[in-house]
Structure formats: structure tokens, C-alpha cells
């Protein structure tokens, strides 16, 4: 089921080009996505949610990743997938935005990395 979902979203998002919006209707929801080189970051939101706010939430998240991994690339995310989860949990929880300050998130992540 999960794999199918991923495939469907993939098929929906990757065919769109730069002239298209970053929002696409999916089932009874909307996918807000943003492309970084070969990587797509997607968030599924309710149709009446604020599209731009989530679009920028993605970017905020990517900037944190970039800072945390010092110029992040796809490989960092694959090899450190379990750390990416920590970053997600710091910034998003229960499907809502938890923390938006990059400084605060990075400080917390640095603390966590120094722990054994």
C-alpha cells in the first residue's frame, strides 16, 4: 500500500515542469512539492491548507538539512537516513509544524549528535 502510494505520487509529480505550479491535486488532498536537483520533497496537505506556507516549510527543512550535513547531497540522506528522521521530528510532528527557527533546530541537532 505504501509502495503504491509512493509510486502514484512519483508518477504525478515527476511529469510536471517548471511552468507548472508546485501544487497538485491528489485523491482528496493536495501534494505540495519542491524539486532540488534530482530530489523531490513532497508534503500531502488538505485542499484548503495554505499552499505557500507548506512550500516554504519544505524549503526551510531543506536549508536545515543543508546546514546540518554541510552542503547536503542525496548520498548524505541515504547513508544517514536515521538522522534525517531526527531532523523531521524536530521540525514537523503529528503532521504539523513544530519548530521553524533554523537556529533552534540546528542547536538541538548539534546537541543530539554530540550524545553517545
Amino acid at each position, binding site marked *: 500500500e505504501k*509502495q503504491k502510494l509512493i509510486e502514484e505520487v512519483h508518477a504525478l509529480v515527476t511529469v*510536471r515542469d517548471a*511552468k*507548472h*505550479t*508546485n*501544487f*497538485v*491535486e491528489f*485523491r*482528496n488532498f493536495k501534494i505540495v512539492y519542491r524539486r532540488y536537483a534530482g530530489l523531490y520533497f513532497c508534503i500531502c496537505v488538505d*485542499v*484548503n491548507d*495554505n*499552499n*505557500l*506556507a507548506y*512550500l*516554504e*516549510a519544505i*524549503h*526551510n527543512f531543506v536549508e536545515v538539512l543543508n546546514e*546540518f*550535513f*554541510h552542503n547536503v547531497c542525496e548520498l*548524505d540522506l*541515504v*547513508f*544517514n*537516513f*536515521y*538522522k534525517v*528522521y*531526527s531532523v523531521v*521530528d524536530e521540525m514537523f*510532528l*503529528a*503532521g*504539523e*509544524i*513544530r*519548530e*521553524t*527557527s*533554523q*537556529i*533552534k533546530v540546528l542547536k*538541538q*541537532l*548539534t*546537541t*543530539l*549528535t*554530540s*550524545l*553517545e
Partner: protein
Amino acid sequence: MPNMRGDAMRGLAVFISDIRNCKSREAELRRINKELTNIRQRFRADKTLDGYQKKKYVCKLLFIFLLGHDIDFGYMEAVNLLSSNKYTEKQIGYLFISVIMNSSSDMKQLIIQNIRNDIQSRNPIFINLALQCVANIGDREMATAFTNDIPRLLVSGDTIDPVKQSAALCLLKLHRTSPESLQLNTEWTARIIHLLNDQHLGVATAAVSLIDALVKRSPDEYKGCVNLAVSRLSRIVTSSYTDFQDYTYYFVPAPWLCVKLLRLLENYPPPEDPSIRSRLNECLDTILNKAQEPLKSKKVQHSNARNAVLFEAINLIIHMDCESSLLVRACNQLGQFLQNRETNLRYLALESMCLLAASEFSHEAVKKHQETVINALKSERDVSVRQRAVDLLYAMCDRSNAEDIVQEMLTYLETADYTIREEMVLKIAILSEKYAVDYKWYLDIMLKLIRIAGDFVSEEVWYRVIQVVVNRADVQSYAAKIAFEALQAPACHENMIKVAGYILGEYGNLIALDPRSTPMVQFELLHTKYHLCSPTTRSLILSTYMKFINLFPEIKMHIQEILRHDSNYRSSDVEIQQRATEYLRLSEICSPTVLATVLEIMPPYPEKQSPLLVRLKQKKPLMEADTSSELSTAPIAQSGDGPKLTDTAMHLHQQQQQNGLLVSLDTTESNGHYETSASSSLPSSLSSSSAALQTNKKFLFKNSDIIFENDILQIGIKGEPKKSVLHVEFYYGNKTNFNLTNLSASISLADELDPELRIHMEPVQTTLDPRAQIKQVGTIECLKDYRDLPKMSLSFFYSNVPQKIDFVLPVYLNKFIEKAEMDSNNYFLRWRNLDKPDQECQKIFPAKFPMSHDVCAQKLEGFGWSNLHNIDVNADNFCGAGIFHTSAQQVGCLYRLEPNKQAKMYRLTIRASKAGVASHLAELLEDQF
């Protein structure tokens, strides 16, 4: 790279590299299997694995899972990691549990205990890990387990900020999964609301999401949040971006918090307190002003963040719908965006404008942008933007611009994307009907619509055309004239033939004096199309011919010849054959006066909500734009001119009866089985899935039944009881000529039912071919006696339109009754033993059906229990017994049913060994005789 220490799990990195280096899918699979064997061995053999090794292996398992493979071991090791006192080990443990383990795990209690230990620890990092896990899984058990701990963490003065943030969202998650088990102490309300004022903006951001959910549950209790939200918002929007340091995002102060505060306010009407209200208006004003300031950065992040706040402010302005100056300013702002370079902004502006069009203050202002919107329709590259443009045109349409808008939409339709054609057709049809001043114009548009859109014209559309014509005597001859002309086109879409055929059958006589359209010409023209049509259409045309016999006796011979023709009279299609036979016979034996009576023209349809609106709603159940635009047009619909749109859910049924006129003619000769098939060839609107909701009681007495049916789908059920387990088979039949895809069926139990029934269904095939039937098998086990019925939800795609059907599954308690035979001594002995008041239930009720002994006996036996003879001295009475099986116990049931033919009443007495069962069974039966 972040500090990569020696313990950064080298083994894991090696494994990931190996996987990435695999050249083929098979090689990858081999590598994974090798690793799984290795890990399994390690876990089994080596009891002395240290924390680091466990962490490493669990992490590998996680990686394998994320690659899409099932993981069925390692759970215990993961749970062990939770009690480690090292952060990295704990983190991997929690991650594994959050990602892989689902609610069915038997280790749930152990996990909950571990989480509790962490939550009660003094280490905020551990508390946070535990809270994040609860927020990620958040099932009912967790809601019950932490109903006190988490709220306490949230409001306690000792809790540090990051923990408060997690606690707030954790609580939100538990509230969503299980609102009933989460009882928030009302003393905490004020303290929760005050989190909006928290110094830490992160805490406020997290809290506002929680408060939003709580407000939706009990708006009055949380009313105090309005004041605080307004003042917080005001402080942010009037400040400079430098005031917020790390919460400023590309020169915009705390954009996400602003958006959330604005959304929170959308839960309430405009504040009553004038000072709060003016403060809020100032905020909104400031946000609109800022949108006019020059950008502080060329980066798109800056404008996006600013506009995120702006769009939310506009949403709130629309929601309050009372400050006309703000509404008009909002509209102008959106108008600017319509011309913006950014596709995102154009899209969002169209979307918001749809809502603005619904407000009487801004409707006119929106109309100024008509031309831009029409341009968008023509030039946008993204279909979803064009879709929004269509929505907006639909929403801004009124009597003054209807002709232009309908014309533009019609033009665009010829080149429109297939995905939006059907919806556009509906919208054009609705608008042209609603705003028609001249119904000739309406008919012109509709026929053109059918010509252009052909296949995309859903049944409702042409049914509606006919309804309008039938109801408006002034356009009937015009309708006949243009229908006739439309038929003259060399290639005619079948939908056009249906409309024209129907109209000529009713009103062909109105143009018969014109030498260009004499009866014979009409008939011959229609007949040139006959052989190209589907059986359904041919059936309809046969009815038209029959009506011609009445309208034009002079061509009766020709028509009888057609009816007699082998291709009709002996058609392989039952429907056609039947019509041909019956119509022919009717034309031979009936006198002209009788014919004139049976074939009288259709009476006007009762006015009701247009089925087109129903259809449109089905197509777009969630798009706000539609509901709002409908609200805006409601006053027009009541104004008296034009067809009235009143909301009656029952109209579908009425309409079917109305349409039964021709049907009843047919059934005079056939046996009535005809009715169902005939209605499909006549205008009727059957396809609303919501209308087909039904609880069927036939299944009470039979082991198979049709439990759901609409135009698209038929669902049958078959049940075979084995003590407390009912083996069920569901049959899904696709009635259409298209694939139904993404089919999924699920049965849900209300909370009370959960401990009472256990349902297991095998997965069902997800695609249903045209006219095909598939089967799904499963079991329903009765754990204890129950009252509510389970609900079945079915979702699927029908020509790319998502459909959802919910209905009640008629699996009544009696399905678990097994019949019991006994002699009269035994019967009375048992009867007397069941003498406690809650073991007996007696009902006296009037007969609903003719009082036949045999039918009663049949029903009682069908119900599941026995029908014992020679027990009651009065042979008219019925007695019997059964055993109601649940997996926990067996409940003996006895009954006695006494008909009173003089009074046309029954008395039913049931006794059962378990309290409550007798009354439930009696309720099931009381209206069935």
C-alpha cells in the same frame, strides 16, 4: 559532515554501499537475504549482543524495510533498545517502532511501559524521543495510557520549551485518533490558551495547531483564544523583521505562526468586542499594505512567505465577510496576482477569487477580471490552473455575463483537456439553465454542447434537457424543430439521437405541418440512425416510434413493419425484443382512443434540485469553490423565474416514478419484471451513489441478497453461518462499460462494535473490468451480542473520478442463530426457566403484510431458528427455538408468535437466556410480518 564518530555504525554504511553497488534487482535481493540471515542468526545465537550491535542490526533492518521489504523479526531487540540509556540506541529503537510496528503488535504494553519511563524521566532529550514516538504512532492505547501525563507536561511550569512543543503536538495527535479517551481537565483550558502568548515562538507555533483542533471540538470553551490570537498576530505584523531574529524567514517575521493564527481565527465569527475587532482589522490592513511594499529580496522564498500570510489574511477576510473595503482590496490584490509571472500565484489567486465571488460585497469586483480569467483559460500551460479558471468563471457567472461566459466555456470545451471536459459540460449546462432568459438560447447551447462534447455529456445532462423541454410548453415546438435539424447532420452523437428521438416522440406533431418535416420524413430520418445505435438507444427509439403511431396514425403501417422485423421482434437483446413485441401487440389491439390515453404526452416534472448539481458535487466532493458558488446563487434560485432548485434528497426516486409512465404501459402486458430494465432507457437519474443508501432487511430471512446497487455497481452478499462465524462472500458487479479501478472495500466497526465483532476480509482485486463480477471472501465472527451494524465503505475510480460509497452491512444478530429442535415438554420447561424480566420481550404489532400462515413459517425458518409443530395447542400459533452463538457463549432463544386474524395483529414473545438478546431479536422482527 556532522561529527562522524567511531561508533557511526560502519557496518551499516558498508551494507548501504553494497546495496547501492548492486547491478540488478536480483543481486540486491540476494544481498538483502544474506543480511537478513546474518541478522537473524546473530539475534538468535548471541545472547550477549551489546547495545551498539543491536542498534546496528535494528538499523539495518529498518533500511531493508525502507527499501520495500517486509520485516518480521527484530521487534524484541528494538524494544530492548528503548530501555538503553544511550541516546543513539534509544533513538534507533524509537525510530524502528515508529516506522515499522503498527497497532497490532503484542508488545504494545511493553512499549508503552518504556515510553512511560522515558516521559517520567528527568532527561528532556529522552522525554522528547518518547513524545515524538507517541506523536508518530498515536493510537488509542497510547491515548488512554497517557491521558494524564502529556497534558501535565504541557501546562507544567517546570517543562522546558522543546518538550512543551512536542507535548502540544503529541496531544493533538491523540486528540485526532481518539478524542473520547482524551479528557482534558477544564482547569487546563486557560493555561493551554495562554500558550499562544508564550515567549517562545516555537511553543506558540506548536500550541496553535493544538488549540485549533480543540476549538473545533468545543468552540465556546476556547473562545478566549480569539483575543490572545489577535494580540499576538498584531504584535508580529506590526513589528519589524529584525525583532524576531531566528523566527524571521527571508525578512518575514514568523510567517508560519501568522498563518496558523489567522486560520485559528477562521473558526469564529468576527470578534464582537469592538476594540479586538478593530485591532484585527488593523492587522489585516497592515498585511494588505505590506503586499504593496517593494520586495526586500529577489528570492522567491521572500515573496512566498509574505504571500502565504497574505493569502491566509484574505481567507479570513472572506470568512468574516463583513468589511466591504477589505474585501474589495483583497480582490484588487488577487487581480494583480492574476497577471503575475509566478504560476503558483496565478493559481492561488484564481482559487481565492472563487471564494470572493461568493460574497455580495466583492462579487462585482471579481467580475472586472472576467477577461483575464478567460485568457487564463486559453493560455495557461498547467491544467490545474485552467481548472481553477473554469471554477472561477462558474463562480462569477450571473445573469449579466452568463451569455459571454457560457459562450467562452463552450469555445474552450472544444480544445479542453479530457480530464476536465465532463465537469465543464456540467457547469455549462447548469449555468445556461440557471441564467437562461430565453429558453431557445438555452436549447441552442445545450444541443451545441451535446454536439461538441458527445461522450463527455453525462446522462444527467441530456435528461435535464428533456425535463426542461417537457416543463416549458413555450419551447416545445422550437425544441422539435432544432432537434430535427440536429438529426440531419451526417454524423450524430448518440446522445444527440437520444435527445432528438425523445423530443420528436413527444412533440414531433408540432412541426409535422412543415413540408420539410412531415411525419414520414421525421420517421425516416430517425430510422437512418437506428441501426448505428446501442441497444439502449434503440429501445428508446422504439418508444418514440410507438408514440408516432399515436401522433401520426398515417404512418402506423411503416412502424408496425419495423416492429415486426426480425432484428427487433427476434432481437437477441431482450429489452428490444420485448418492446417490439409489446408495442406491436398494443398497436394491433388498441383503439386509437385507448392508444391516445396510454401514449399521452409526458406531464411536467416536479420542480426539484437539478440532478446536475448533484452530479457536480459528486465529482468534486471536496472543492470548496463549488459549494460556495452555489450558496451565492441560492437567492437567484428562489426568485421564481427559471427552474427552481430545491433541495430534496428524495427527488431521484420521485423522478423515477414520474418516468414510469411509459413503463407502466409496458407492464400492463408483461409481468412487472420489466420495470427495472425499462427505466434505464428512459430519462431518470439513478447514478447518485448517496441516494442508494439503504439498509436492506431481506437479508434477515435469506442468506444472500443484493445489498447495494446504483448505476455503476451492484454488490451482493452471501453468508453461510457456522456457529459463531459467518462465512461471507461479497460479489461486486461492474454495470458500466468502463473499468473501475483502485477498488478498495473496508468494513468498519463503530467503537461499541469493536469488542463485539471480529471481521476478516481477504483483499479484493483492485480493478473491476466492464460488466464483470469479482468476489471477495471473508469471515465475520460474533464475539458477543451486538446491536449496531458494521459499515462498509467502498472507494474506487470511475472514469478517473473518485467515488465513495458507504452503506450499512445488514449482518443482523440472527445470522448467528442455529436452529434447535425439541419436544413440547422440553420447550415449556425451558420457557419457564427463562422467567427473569430482562430475559423476555413481548411486542404486539399490526400486520404489515397479508396474514399467510405459510409465509410466516417461511420467514421464521429463514430467520434461523426452528418452527416447531405440535407445541402450541392453537395450530395457528408458531413456536420455535434456536441457539445464538457467540465465541464466548451460547444463548438459548425461544419464541412464540400469535397471529390474531380478526384484529390483524400479531403478538410476538421472545425469551433468551442472556439479558437484552430477546428485546433485540424482537425489534428485528416486529415490522416484518
